[in-house]
């Protein structure tokens, strides 16, 4: 069972990295942050986005990774505003 936030992040990353990589990557970082995917909330996003940068940089470069991380963090701010 995944949270809405989890789905939103996967949806954001899928056009770039593909659905499988987006899901695996998120699972990988949730495990690193010692939480379950269904516990993911807007408050976790800045830390999660920052942690993801090195792996994103593999495919997107540092600048692209920084940009996507910023967009992910903004997903959290958007959710918090709602």
């Amino acid at each position, binding site marked *: 069972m995944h949270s809405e936030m989890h789905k939103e992040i996967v949806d954001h990353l*899928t*056009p*770039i*990295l*593909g*659905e*499988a*990589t*987006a*899901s*695996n*990557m998120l699972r*990988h970082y949730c495990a690193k942050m010692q939480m379950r995917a269904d516990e993911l909330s807007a408050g976790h996003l800045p830390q999660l986005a920052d942690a993801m940068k090195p*792996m994103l*940089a*593999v*495919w*997107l*470069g*540092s*600048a*692209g990774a*920084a*940009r*996507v991380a*910023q967009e992910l963090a903004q997903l959290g701010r958007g959710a918090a505003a709602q």
Partner: protein
Amino acid sequence: MKSGSVIKPFVLSLIVMPIAFAIVLAAGGRATADRFTDSVFAVMVLMEMVILWRATEARKLFSPTDAGHLTWSLIVGFLFVRLLGECRLLTLTFGLVDAKALESATAIRFFYVVALRYLYTLSDVFFIGALINTVRSYKGTGLKFELVSRDYVYIALVWIIPIVTYFNRANLGLASLTGADSYIPVYRLVAVFVGAIIATMCVAIRRYALQMGGGAVSRVWTSVVIAGIARDASFLALALLSSRWPSGAKFAEQWLLWTFAGCWLIAALRQQEVLPRVPAREYAPA
């Protein structure tokens, strides 16, 4: 230039080109058909200049510390050295430098005609470096990217290409854009073996791209994989067709190299479209 605007004309060209070749061959005979193939080659060299430019742009998306920077630097090196080789071949194809009577050639001309064809092999070494770095990058993420048993079958099939070419090596010197010479079969055998290494790595990267489950990055590497396999298949086409149909062999080789070039152009454009919405430098890390 967007990849979407290139794909349709490119696919169309792949269909139209053999039809045009057949018409030219039927109407004008073998010599005219060979000139048609030479023209396709000349246009392809122009396309390779554009590819080099677009690959240089793709490289700029990565900072020097990124794994992708090394990958795209090696790709730019590969395309640049290859383009040098293509310019050499252009001068030979259109008679600017005499490629015949090598036994009586000066040392410089012999070096130019025979030794410099190994520029292609050198360029392939850069390409292999790029592919190795890509495999390392995928593995380095710690995510699950691995070959499945089917891939080993594909790799075995890929290695049939150099083996079949080896057993048909007597045909390798029969057809060439510049006319046959006694040194070209050795070069082509080297090239087809190096090509098999490239194709093997392409099979691995194709698997990783599939395991990504779609996405823009996957599409970049799928294009590279098709390019790599088309290049290797061009040698197989030469080996299989040269003795029976030299004009057809030359054209088939050129058609596959056209496929190779088109896929590289699409790959370089797609790399730039992975994050299309705003210039990447606006997000450059502090």
